[in-house]
């Protein structure tokens, strides 16, 4: 692997700080909703940070046709995306304070019609790679060079439509389509391997005609370098899948070890303790 895509120490520090921001804001917003998907965001916090604060080509105009796209197959992690969209100026920051309350556009899942900056609505697991395939397919026909990033849950690998899209993207040689599997190992009913095993995942994607990379999804330096490299690679003639090995609940010790935290609610004292733990760590 070439090393020239690695972020500088200053960039790493900033991205770490933004991943921490995502985790802290997630705790704050779920305190408003009183139930939410903490751990689904915590496993993906570095992915969010690397994409939105470094890798993706964005514009103040959320409808700019040449922007890079980001879709979430695991739409239930949207609570981690909204604070980023607010910080980037796509939605007013005060909207966050009414997260999930009557009339607020921000719910458990992202809604493109209500939230500027959301590139596609999701919530029904398994659609997003197909949505991204359509964007990449027609973007290429239009002569645009944007990259479409689709973050998928590892439980989502159990959905048949994902593999329809995987076949289709490889057939159409959609080199500007990048899937990122948040391989955090857990879904609602338990460990992915127990509920419906998906390994060997890298071999599956490779067999479907994709270029495959496996990376530590919490190593912000390696993750960012890989995403930069994959995006910059104009010679690739196939879509690319990044399997990000992550910890569900990364950052809060008991969430990392107890499998029951797919959904949950931290009461104010637990929320404060979780905040302190996140602030005390360098991830």
């Amino acid at each position: 692997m070439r090393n020239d895509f690695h972020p500088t120490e200053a960039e790493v520090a900033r991205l770490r700080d933004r991943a921490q921001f995502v985790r802290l804001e997630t705790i704050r917003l779920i305190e408003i909703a009183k139930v939410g998907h903490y751990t689904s965001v915590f496993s993906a916090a570095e992915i969010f940070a690397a994409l939105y604060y470094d890798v993706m080509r964005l514009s103040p105009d959320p409808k700019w046709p040449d922007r890079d796209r980001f879709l979430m197959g695991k739409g239930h992690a949207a609570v981690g995306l909204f604070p980023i969209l607010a910080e980037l100026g796509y939605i007013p920051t005060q909207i966050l304070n009414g997260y999930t309350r009557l009339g607020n556009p921000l719910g458990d899942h992202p809604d493109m019609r209500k939230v500027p900056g959301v590139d596609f609505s999701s919530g029904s697991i398994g659609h997003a790679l197909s949505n991204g395939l359509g964007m990449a397919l027609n973007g290429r026909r239009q002569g645009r060079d944007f990259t479409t990033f689709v973050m998928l849950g590892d439980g989502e690998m159990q959905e048949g439509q994902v593999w329809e899209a995987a076949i289709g993207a490889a057939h159409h040689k959609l080199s500007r389509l990048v899937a990122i599997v948040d391989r955090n190992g857990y879904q609602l009913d338990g460990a992915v391997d127990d509920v419906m095993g998906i390994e060997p995942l890298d071999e599956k994607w490779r067999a479907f005609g994709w270029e495959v990379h496996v990376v530590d999804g919490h190593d912000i330096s390696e993750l960012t370098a890989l995403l930069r490299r994959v995006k910059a690679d104009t010679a690739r003639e196939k879509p690319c899948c990044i399997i990000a090995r992550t910890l569900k609940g990364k950052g809060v010790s008991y969430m990392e070890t107890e499998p029951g935290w797919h959904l949950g609610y931290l009461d104010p004292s637990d929320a404060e303790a979780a905040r302190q733990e996140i602030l005390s760590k360098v991830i």
Partner: protein
Amino acid sequence: MSIANLRPNSPNSWHYRELNMKNPGLDHLSNGLISLVEAGRDIVAGSADLQYSNGLNRFAARFPDRYFSFGISEQNMVSAAAGIATTGTMPYVATFASFLGLLTCEQIRMDVAYCALPVRLIGHHTGISMGFYGTSHHATEDIGTMRSIADLTIVSPSDGPQLEAAIRASADHDRPIYFRTGRGREPDIYDPKADFVFGKAIEHAQGEELTIIACGLPVHPSIQVARKLNAEGRSVGVIDMATVKPLDRDAVLAAAARSKFILTIEEHNILGGLGAAVAEVLAEEGSPARLVRHGIRDEYALIAPPTHLYAHYRLDQAGIETVVREIIR
């Protein structure tokens, strides 16, 4: 002659491509799309391994960069079409109505209609037109499923020219649309150059004894039946409800004010389809007109060649005539 040189005279599936060209009604699908591109519209089309069944091969040959092959992955196709629509291009995707209206129902709800994207879904070979291919290929529920999806326009053209006109008009319609079309062997009623107006019923005849409200394939035989009966001095009206949703309520109520009976005819389960939509209007408005719904009576259709099925279910001209005569005596 060696075995290697043997060549059968019998047709195979590629020969049937030529036979499918005998579905002239569906030629109008490509005609409409080609005219849209020629008019400068940014549209693309896609199909799920059925381009020779729906005639999109002609569009694909003419504009290969605007045609996407999706293979047998209908759900992927619908979700991808929604993705395409976000990039400013209007996608038209087609497959059998049985698959589009049922298999991809959730993708249509979530990715197309809820996201309010101008995707055009073309469900062809609808109703029982697939004959002996059986229930898996029959679509007698698609109006019901699609009608319950908010913000989805449903168009059921009764012939190829009307399909072409509706396809052309759809480029200026900003809502998601489900087209429910036949297999392309319906007799022509309309001129493809005529304007198609979404949400506007087409009245072919007015009647005081009974008004037929039909959509799709039964419209043509209904017109014939009305003509015959009216020549006998009876008074039978016919309305082509080409847009099933939003329903032309005014047309329904005007017919109900004029006629003693309203007879809905559809190649669909009488539950959840056009008859149900008309019933809702009549009941809500307290109309005194008596409603009779004709179609598939909440059952899975038998298998047979299509014309045999239409006769069996009294959806052909002779059958519709007996249904009407039983009502008006």
